[in-house]
């Protein structure tokens, strides 16, 4: 990003610090709207002063202090409103601070509030991106292909529920943590996939989503270093992201076996491999750790032929034991095709009830092709093309269909 425009630099820092600033203000004032308004006012002050005076040494601290002062001024000025706010104090923190408990970073509390199971899944995603990621409502609406008013209503409704139902602002107790953490990780992974698998829409905004998800993943990892699924999810995201640029060539999807492995990001792969080793050593494998391990095996092979399919199939078996789903079985069948041949794999694929899923049709098409059954492969490619909106994927499938043996 070029930062000749000083406002651009201020806005970048503001967005990076937004989650920390808002989380701290929510704890202090017990009100998300007050926190957001005050953070917005601090940005106005920063845009006035920083270009002239320079960026302060601790911009996050400066923004939090400035926003806090603004919020206090406002509450004092509007003492009537202050009373109203006190009456409707929206977020309760009545738990005594436990020094032995998990790290009480304000952002960690806030992400558990945003990803509370009592909120609709799409609202969890939107709130997390708004409050932790600092994305504007317009940006979130654009990324999820809904009108801005719809997204604004979704966020407003969720904030109202947090207030009215007294959804707490705290890290869940240890016995709830695993289940509640699952909801948080699901939100982060959904944000990542929304960016990575971008089915349509404006590319740049959606690619920002993968970067945002990785940033949230790193944040969670620093806040909950002892949770292996947190490390697993981060590993999964960086190992997937490492292959991004090799995944599409000339507007066409490139399957992993044909990807230019020289184009993979070696730094991200090294980071992912370290994370996978570290989390698996804890001995509590979960779905993100296993998916990350599968990606680690793929990215470990110098070329497609050297892929350790036996290990991949074994990892999918383990994954199926933890998270039994037909999609996992489908991916396992791809490994089976490499080990036991396409006929065995096709029999497994045909047993799965996934007729609405484009990857099921695409996998069938490829297996039929390898078996020389072009007449059956052709309609399978057609079904796969009809079931996806992704232009790169459609381009790839169309070419494959066109190059079938007669």
């Amino acid at each position, binding site marked *: 990003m070029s930062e000749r425009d000083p406002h651009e630099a201020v806005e970048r820092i503001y967005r990076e610090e937004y989650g920390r600033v808002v989380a701290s203000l929510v704890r202090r004032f017990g009100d998300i709207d007050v926190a957001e308004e005050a953070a917005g006012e601090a940005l106005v002050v920063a845009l006035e002063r920083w270009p002239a005076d320079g960026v302060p040494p601790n911009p996050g601290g400066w923004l939090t202090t400035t926003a806090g002062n603004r919020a206090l001024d406002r509450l004092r000025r509007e003492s009537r409103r202050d009373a109203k706010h*006190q*009456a409707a104090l929206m977020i309760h923190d009545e738990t005594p601070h436990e020094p032995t408990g998990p790290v009480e970073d304000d952002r960690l509390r806030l992400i558990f509030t945003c990803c509370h199971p009592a909120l609709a899944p799409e609202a969890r995603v939107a709130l997390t991106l708004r409050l932790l990621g600092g994305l504007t409502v317009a940006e979130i609406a654009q990324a999820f292909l809904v009108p801005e008013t719809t997204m604004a209503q979704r966020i407003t409704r969720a904030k109202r529920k947090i207030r009215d*139902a007294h959804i707490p602002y705290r890290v869940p107790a240890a016995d709830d943590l695993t289940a509640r953490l699952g909801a948080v990780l699901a939100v982060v992974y959904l944000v990542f996939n929304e960016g990575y698998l971008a089915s349509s829409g404006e590319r740049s905004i959606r690619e920002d989503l993968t970067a945002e998800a990785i940033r949230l993943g790193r944040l969670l990892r620093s806040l909950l270093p002892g949770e292996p699924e947190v490390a697993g999810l981060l590993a999964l995201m960086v190992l997937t992201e490492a292959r991004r640029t090799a995944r599409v060539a000339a507007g066409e999807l490139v399957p992993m076996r044909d990807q230019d492995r020289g184009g993979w990001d070696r730094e991200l792969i090294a980071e992912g491999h370290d994370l996978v080793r570290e989390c698996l050593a804890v001995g509590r494998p979960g779905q993100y750790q296993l998916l990350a391990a599968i990606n680690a095996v793929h990215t470990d092979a110098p070329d497609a032929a050297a892929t350790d399919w036996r290990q991949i199939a074994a990892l999918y078996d383990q994954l199926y034991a933890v998270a039994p789903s037909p999609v996992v079985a489908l991916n396992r069948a791809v490994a089976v095709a490499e080990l036991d041949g396409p006929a065995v794999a096709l029999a497994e694929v045909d047993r799965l009830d996934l007729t609405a899923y484009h990857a099921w049709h695409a996998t069938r098409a490829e297996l039929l092709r390898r078996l020389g059954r072009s007449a059956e492969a052709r309609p399978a490619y057609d079904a796969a093309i009809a079931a996806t909106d992704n232009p790169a994927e459609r381009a790839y499938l169309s070419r494959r269909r066109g190059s079938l043996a007669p």
Partner: protein
Amino acid sequence: MSQYLLAVNGSAADEAAQSQMTMEEMQPLFEAVERFNERLRAEGAWVFAGGLQPIGSTTTVDHTGGEVIITDGPFAESKEWLGGFWVIEAPDLDAALRWAAEGSKACAGRVEVRPFQDEPEA
């Protein structure tokens, strides 16, 4: 502390099934609910609770106009209606949800958790 309504809905099918049950068959359910109520009282979460008579016993009263209009039955026909409820005190939604999970198990029915409006401060 806030108050929450834990509502248990019933349907025609539920009411029909219950009317087929003998007192002996109902007994474990009553006991489970009573044990849950005792826990609510012991923890200071109890405000009020009760089970309602079947939907057929409802009378609707409308005094929104000039005169009182009394009609048999509920105001709106629906597939599900309130069958029983608890009103509890809880520090936040997480605590209310934990009580709801226990209550759902005790009464063998789905529980809807809904916050009461906060009382305006004097």
